[in-house]
């Protein structure tokens, strides 16, 4: 009943499932939510939560504030990315569709997780190959590919996959750019991703990240690493369109050339902390 008076942007468009015979006895619920008898799969994909535009706006603001207050809240950064990134995700998806390898990824939907990676095989690859360098990166920085937050607030299922792919490919970006996971490395990768993807969350991270760097790092960022990242991000091929899982044995330098990425101007070591 209240739907009639509610502003359009606060209504969730859902199907009504009405019980036929005794509708007058069953209390009409106050919202138009479908009777969720299957809680496992509520929404367009596993883990999807339906939200109205008003809720998305509120989430964007709230998660932005929370992420700024506590940068270690990766789930808030993730939520910010999902709620603000719709247009960027659409353009990314179109770019992927226009690329033959990207189209393969969209149809096959590969996932990068420990269970799908053959670590022994990758360790036996020669030095300088993409797979070996990626493994080295994971070991040196003590990260695992399984720590990505699940996508929840993107309403289109294909765009949700694009978002997920972007998150899973983030570590591979570190390997491609040769950046460790300290603050400076993360900011450089964010600049690259902002130029590549156009996601507002990346842009925000790129702008606010440098605030936490000391003067020496800031200088190196603005003079050499930053412009390098932006330049390569703009002219490089779309990094989400690469089927990394089939390129583990490819030489890293060859892969960089193929993606039009110059080698990094300075080698940063993972032992350095901000």
């Amino acid at each position, binding site marked *: 009943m*209240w739907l009639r*008076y*509610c502003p359009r942007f*606060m209504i969730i468009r859902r199907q009504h499932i009405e*019980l036929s*015979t*005794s509708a007058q*006895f*069953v*209390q009409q*619920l*106050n*919202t138009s*939510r479908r*009777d*969720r*008898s*299957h*809680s*496992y799969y509520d929404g367009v994909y596993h883990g999807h*939560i339906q939200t*109205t535009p*008003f*809720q998305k706006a*509120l*989430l964007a603001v*709230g*998660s932005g*504030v*929370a992420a700024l207050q506590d940068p270690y*809240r990766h*789930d*808030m950064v993730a*939520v910010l990315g999902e709620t603000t990134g719709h247009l960027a995700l659409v353009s990314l998806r179109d770019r992927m569709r226009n690329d033959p390898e990207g189209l393969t990824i969209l149809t096959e939907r590969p996932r990068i997780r420990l269970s799908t990676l053959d670590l022994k095989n990758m360790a036996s690859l020669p030095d300088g190959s993409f797979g070996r360098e990626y493994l080295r990166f994971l070991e040196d920085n003590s990260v695992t590919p399984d720590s990505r937050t699940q996508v*929840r607030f993107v309403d289109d299922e294909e765009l949700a996959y694009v978002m997920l792919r972007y998150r899973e490919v983030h570590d591979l970006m570190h390997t491609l750019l040769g950046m460790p996971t300290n603050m400076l490395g993360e900011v450089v990768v964010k600049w690259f991703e902002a130029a590549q993807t156009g996601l507002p969350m990346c842009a925000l991270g790129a702008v606010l990240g440098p605030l936490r760097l000391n003067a020496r790092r800031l200088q190196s960022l603005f003079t050499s690493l930053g412009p390098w990242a932006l330049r390569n991000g703009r002219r490089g091929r779309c990094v989400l369109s690469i089927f990394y899982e089939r390129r583990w044995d490819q030489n890293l330098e060859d892969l960089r050339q193929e993606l039009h990425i110059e080698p990094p101007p300075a080698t940063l070591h993972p032992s350095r902390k901000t």
Partner: protein
Amino acid sequence: MAANIHCSIINRKRNFLSHCVINMAASVRTFVRSLSRKNACFTAVLRRSECRGFTGAAEDRSTHFGFETVSEAEKASKVYKVFENVAQKYDVMNDAMSLGIHRLWKDALLHVMHPQPGARLLDVAGGTGDIAFRFLDYIRSQQEKQQRRAMSLGQTPSWRDISDGYPAGGGAPESAVVVCDINKEMLKVGRQRADSRGVTTGLSWVVGDAEELPFNDDQFDLYSIAFGIRNVTRIDQALKEALRVLKPGGRFLCLEFSKVTNPVLERLYDAYSFQVIPVLGEVIAGDWKSYQYLVESIRKFPDQEEFKGLMEDAGFFCVQYFNLTGGVVALHSGFKL
């Protein structure tokens, strides 16, 4: 009064019919679900519950978990998981969601309760101890008021009065509050709060189910349950247990979200509940679904009159309710006589 009884019988018939319909719909849904379910282990659970339909009554009956329909056996464990997740941020979230007004509601509960020194309170679903701490503060202030009154009368206390004041076994009955909760995480948070406040005596923490309290009959002067009874699977069972553990003359007090009386306020409240509260849950506690459950469970709870009827059916006398904040919260009170 005859009209009232007639209305209550009709209401009960209507509730019974709707319950039957929900049961039928639920069993059809269960069957369809088991046919088309992709996840094998989920199917296995459903099949097990169907096979046990004739022997296990709890799996056969269904109840609501927010807007979802689940079996009664499932509901308890789902509610447990919800509160396990929210326990650490429970108090912060209460303040954020109610803009601090929940403190006024709990203060109102204590004012209506008006406990006197020597009273024993059982606070069920009292996890983090809000009511318990308020109770102890109230008792202490009542004691101070009594002492001030005695002083102002200008009488010097006799030796008997002084010796009564000494903390000793066998003196005047000490007031005590027992906090009972089914969820260990919530009790853990409550104990931490007690330690940080420096409260050591007069307080005990017990793990227990409101439908099956681990206490003997006729133990407590006061029974309170604040924002907990809507999470109980069988409310009538919880009310019967409350009646059992109260002493004759004891008082039952229940603070719970209820139906808003004003239609304008109701629309605002609904919009706020469904739009803002899950977002707050996600941002502050990192848990959308638990707070979605919270606002849905409020909608499924019986309204003021229905709950009053339930209390009367359980055997309480002089049942009355007070609407707080326009009906957002209702305080029900009944006596065991």
